[in-house]
């Protein structure tokens, strides 16, 4: 059986939604933590690069200082200088220039006059005549310093040269920190800039206008006032690039921020990494939500199948009158519901079967009763006709009167038999009504003719007072005959000799739809208010007749209402009774 479940789609949507909500929360948390960690790594990278740059710078400075001391402490150089053998001195120190990577090497005599001057092409023209380092050296002090020279930074150191504790000269060493060095220091994605006296001297930043780099000083001032060590990491936009930058002081302790290095790491890679991270996290999360939803969908298939079977089963039960059980496919509450439903339909089927048997039994009883009535009617006809044929014979009048009594007794018996027969047909649902146009005066006349012998026997006058022009009724004729027969027999029995029973008729003026009224009146003893209560109920008869079955008026009410009419009584004790019938009127011909 194919299962069509409307719940399935809703369930799928609910599953998906709840999974998405849960995952979005989780993913936001993961994203936050991951981003924070990546940013932390980025900061650490910036710091690491900055420290490497600083270390390189300090290596350079140390190289200069150590080279100056190395040369000054060599006694051979002091002797040669004191003896004025400058060409020998030059020859000896020349290799040192290349070996140490120095760019400037100068030796003066004790007067500060340059005796040996060596330099590579980059160090050409450096004027040391007014160099404060030389002056300090002549005073016996070893010093170093940083200065700006053209578009570079110059790192230089000086040390005094002695011969047997006599100062004979000063050695001066120097290196240049120029653009090539700065570019050597910079790593891929990391750039370096050097500031001297708060002025940009050299930098490796590309595609960034220098005036923008100069404006960095403003943010530098912010860093200066803040936590100077480690915490001075900022985010800056330079040109069209975003950088994370940090500052490292190079100056003396009293003025740490006069000279400094700026290290900037481009955020382009970082931003790309963060975007990739988000895509990965939300992509994987979304896929997980879909997989979860499909999994739960699959798991709920059994449930939905049971619901669909229940729905189809209930529909089928209504359509095919409780045919068949619902398949039980799950062992949960839904399965129990299906089993309960099956138990209910089984019980209903059993009840229906019993009712059908009961109905068949009642129908069989009605058939049986019908047969009995037929079997009684046939011989009764013979009895009646035989008695009546004696009327003209030589029968004594008393005997004839008694024979008439037998005839009337048989009439009463027939009336009861008919009552029982009609009631059983009605209650078994086998009473078929065939409404047709019935002229009321003819219907009543036929009955009055039938009951004329009884009326004569009881010495009661029978009158048909229905106007001939009264329009026809719309009723089933045999059942209305039963009603009128009962009312007439009751009226005849209730009326004393010399009295009168009449049937009147007319249009019912106050009725909302066309109705005729027939009234059976008698001049009998009438009915008290108590007697009138429940008069039309089953087995609740009746006046002056202990032998009555109590069905007559109940039959009248049942058959009148089956014909779409109403019945009621109007009576007072001692003033006769009027039984009213309101019945549908046939539509005028052609109307």
């Amino acid at each position: 059986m194919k299962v069509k479940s409307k719940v399935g789609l809703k369930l799928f949507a609910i599953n998906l939604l709840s999974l998405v909500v849960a995952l979005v929360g989780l993913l936001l948390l993961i994203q936050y933590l991951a981003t924070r960690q990546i940013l932390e790594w980025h900061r650490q990278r910036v710091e690491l690069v900055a420290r490497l740059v600083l270390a390189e710078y300090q290596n350079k400075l140390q190289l200069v200082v150590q080279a100056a001391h190395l040369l000054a402490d060599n006694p051979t150089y002091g002797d040669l200088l004191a003896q004025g053998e400058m060409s020998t001195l030059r020859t000896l120190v020349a290799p040192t220039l290349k070996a140490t990577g120095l760019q400037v090497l100068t030796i003066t005599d004790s007067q500060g006059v340059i005796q040996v001057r060596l330099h590579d092409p980059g160090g050409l023209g450096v004027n040391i005549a007014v160099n404060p380092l030389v002056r300090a050296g002549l005073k016996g002090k070893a010093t170093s310093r940083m200065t700006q020279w053209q578009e570079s930074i110059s790192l230089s150191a000086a040390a005094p040269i002695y011969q047997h504790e006599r100062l004979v000269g000063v050695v001066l060493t120097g290196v240049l920190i120029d653009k090539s060095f700065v570019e050597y220091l910079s790593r891929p994605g990391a750039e370096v800039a050097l500031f001297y006296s708060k002025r940009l001297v050299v930098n490796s930043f590309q595609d960034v206008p220098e005036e923008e780099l100069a404006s960095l000083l403003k943010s530098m001032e912010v860093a200066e006032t803040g936590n100077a060590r480690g915490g001075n990491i900022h985010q800056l936009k330079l040109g069209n690039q975003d950088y994370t930058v940090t500052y490292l002081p190079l100056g003396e302790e009293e003025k740490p921020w006069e000279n400094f290095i700026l290290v900037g790491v481009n955020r382009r890679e970082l931003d790309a990494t963060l975007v990739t991270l988000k895509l990965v996290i939300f992509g994987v999360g979304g896929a997980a939500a879909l997989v979860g939803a499909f999994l739960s969908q699959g798991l709920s298939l059994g449930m939905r199948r049971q619901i669909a079977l229940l729905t189809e089963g209930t529909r089928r039960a209504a359509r095919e009158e409780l045919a068949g059980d619902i398949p039980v496919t799950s062992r949960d509450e839904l399965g129990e519901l299906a089993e309960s439903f099956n138990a209910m339909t089984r019980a209903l089927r059993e009840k229906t079967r019993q009712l059908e048997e009961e109905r068949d039994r009642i129908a069989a009883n009605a058939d049986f009763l019908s047969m009995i009535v037929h079997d009684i009617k046939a011989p009764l006809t013979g009895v009646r006709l035989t008695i009546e044929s004696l009327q003209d014979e030589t029968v004594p009048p008393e005997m004839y009167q008694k024979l008439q009594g037998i005839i009337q007794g048989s009439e009463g018996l027939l009336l009861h038999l008919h009552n029982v027969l009609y009631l059983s047909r009605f209650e078994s649902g086998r009473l078929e009504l065939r409404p047709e146009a019935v002229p009321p005066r003819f219907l009543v006349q036929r009955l009055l003719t039938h009951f004329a012998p009884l009326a004569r026997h009881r010495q009661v006058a029978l009158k048909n007072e229905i106007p001939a022009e009264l329009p026809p009724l719309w009723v089933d004729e045999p059942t209305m005959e039963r009603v009128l027969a009962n009312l007439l027999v009751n009226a005849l029995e209730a009326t004393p000799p010399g009295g009168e029973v009449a049937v009147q008729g007319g249009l019912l003026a106050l009725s909302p739809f066309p109705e005729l009224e027939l009234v059976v009146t008698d001049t009998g003893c009438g009915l008290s208010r108590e007697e009138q209560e429940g008069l039309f109920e089953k087995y609740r008869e009746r006046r002056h007749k202990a032998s009555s079955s109590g069905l007559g008026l109940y039959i009248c009410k049942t058959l009148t209402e089956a014909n779409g009419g109403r019945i009621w009584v109007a009576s007072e004790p001692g003033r006769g009774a009027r039984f009213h019938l309101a019945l549908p009127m046939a539509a005028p011909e052609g109307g």
Partner: protein
Amino acid sequence: MDPWILVIDDEAVTREALAAILRQAGYGVEAWEDARPLEGRGLNRPYRLAVVDYHLPTVTGLEAAIRLKRHLPGCRVLLISSEPPPRDDAAWELGVVDGFLAKPFSKDAILEAVGRLLTPASW
């Protein structure tokens, strides 16, 4: 001569009472308990009317009426029964029955019905 009437009823008491009442009324009457004689060649009397019970031993009253009218097309048929014959009976459709009287009926009722059917105006 008074018209002849044929009475067919298997119940002896009814048959004889009917015959007696009709004879008292001056009709010539012949009474049968079944419609079997109608299978013969012809009828020895020119019956003007037949009073036929529906439930007969060998055939229904309607079949008896059909046979009767084959011999005597002018003979009228008054069907008597404790219940009207079923409406789906094909013979009912043929209109072989001229009148119906429900059992039990009174002497007056049968005389009135017979008189009406024998009156030329009712033809």
